[in-house]
């Protein structure tokens, strides 16, 4: 992860409806939003922000297929080449009995794979500390953040007046790594 520090100007809102209106206005004014933080998923926010649909599920499908093949081919190899045993008079290559395990490994691979991918992409995981702009955005505040590295004071004043015009209850700055 890049360690370049970011200067952030952020405003806190009390309600998601006010936040949504503010995001709409920011988009209309062509302000470049760094990120929006909410304590819970806000329906309809993604399209307003213009976020692309996550590609995580495509990764999940690929992991799932890897799981399917791993389980199926491994069992095929074990029961036909490595250690063939007859169970209950069934043929060595007994596909129906492979299916439950194949299914389980498909689910396991896709679940673990997606968790690892998600954590990696978001820079999360054990031992990682992420600076939080404000503790209350995990509780009851809705936040719009702008990055202000190299912005002129004119720009910053413009952002501050944007916040006051859209009803932010608080405006702060913070430098995060």
């Amino acid at each position, binding site marked *: 992860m890049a360690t370049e520090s970011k200067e952030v100007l952020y405003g806190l809102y009390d309600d998601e409806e006010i936040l949504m209106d503010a995001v709409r206005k920011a988009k209309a004014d062509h302000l470049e939003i760094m990120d929006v933080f909410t304590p819970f998923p806000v*329906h*309809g926010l993604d399209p307003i922000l213009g976020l692309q*649909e996550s590609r995580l599920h495509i990764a999940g*499908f690929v992991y799932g297929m890897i799981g399917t093949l791993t389980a199926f081919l491994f069992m095929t190899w074990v029961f036909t080449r490595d250690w063939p045993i007859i169970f209950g*008079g069934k043929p060595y290559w007994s596909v*129906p*009995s492979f*299916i*439950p395990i194949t299914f389980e490994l498909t689910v396991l691979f896709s679940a673990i794979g997606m968790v690892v991918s998600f954590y990696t992409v978001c820079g999360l995981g054990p031992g990682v500390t992420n600076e939080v702009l404000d503790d209350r955005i995990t509780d009851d505040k809705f936040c719009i953040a702008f990055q202000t590295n190299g912005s002129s004071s004119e720009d910053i004043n413009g952002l501050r007046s944007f916040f006051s015009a859209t009803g932010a209850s608080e405006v702060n700055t913070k430098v995060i790594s």
Partner: protein
Amino acid sequence: MTDFTFEGKQRTLFLGMMAVGLVCLVATFFAEDAGHHARFWSNFLHNSVFFTGVAFTSLFVYCAFTTAYAGWYTVMKRVWEAYAQFLIVGLVFMLIIAAGVFLHWHHLYHWADESLLDPSNPDKYDAVLAGKSSFLNKYWYGIGTLLIVGTWYVFATRIRSISLDEDRSGTTEYTHHSRLRRWCAAFLPIAGFSSAAIIWQWVMSIDSHWYSTMFAWYTTASWFVSALCLTILTLIYLKSKGYYNNLTDEHLHDLGKYLFAFSIFWTYLWFSQYMLIWYANNGEETIYFHTRINEYPVLFYGNLLINFVLPFLVLMRNSTKRKYGTLIFVSVMVLFGHWWDFFQMIKPGVNPHAGAHGDHGGHADHGHGHDHAHDVAHAVADHAEHASNFASGFTIPGLLEVGTFIGFLGLFLYVAFAQLAKAKLEPENDPYYAESLHHHV
């Protein structure tokens, strides 16, 4: 538009479909009289069971959602109320089958042959059927059908009348809704047990010696998926006619998810049933799949292809559940697929052209005698004569079967649309209506 008009054009279309179905049914009756008109009677049973089940699962899922405080479906709940009203037609049809059991109009059910139950005649005595005869008998069949489908219909009308009364004289207060929920909650356990008991009688007992504890779940899942397909198609059609403007892609997306999920649920049950029987390999259980895999491979593998592989691959992506084109394609295919599934449950057991590997429907051909050695010898000779026992309408659905399906579908939709026209399309006084309008996935 909240008031639905059942237009003359639609009436004509559905009546035309019914006419096609009726012509096909009559043609089937006269074209083939093998096994007491087995083809005609099994087609009648097949479609009656299928559409009665669609009506039943519509009511069931309506009750399940209402009991679970679900709000999203409220805008379209009239469609399920209307579907459930088909139960009275289904009851009449199933009672005709039951009357046929009494009066020997058909020999779809091997257990209906009472001469097999007489222990004083060891040549014919069938110990397995004698053991089951307290449940598999003509009285239980008739009374069970009347009692169970009758109960379903009582719940369907009661629930609908409360819901319509809410429209006329209610408010969005919970007074009507709490009454509705009590009826719905009461229906769930009744529906759970009674649907299992009746499907054993209607379908599973065709293969009289065979049984499966997964069977009731498996068929109910099949019904439910069919009901979802029909719901999606009806809603998209009504939207195209300018109704249901409040019904958005979000609602269809959720129905698509249900279709996807329950196709997989159906496959899970199908496989659970198959694998347990394959593993244990008890002769009396295995014969069911042995027959289907060897004599009816198109039915057997086609079933999995249409009902699992197709919806699984097509509906997996987010976007395909929100596009009308893919939804319509999958719904049509899977609706046909589950009709095919019921065909595959019923037909091998009643096929009068079946060879040694066939089930017991063939006995009707050889008179009531149950001379097993004779049967086998006859069948083996039969088998040697023609290597394949292909019989249209049994091995795979023929044109007459498809026509019959269209006829029943026309009748079902006629009943449903006539019911839809009787009330507002959207239940505006339902306390969950507003929530439904703001549904977002």
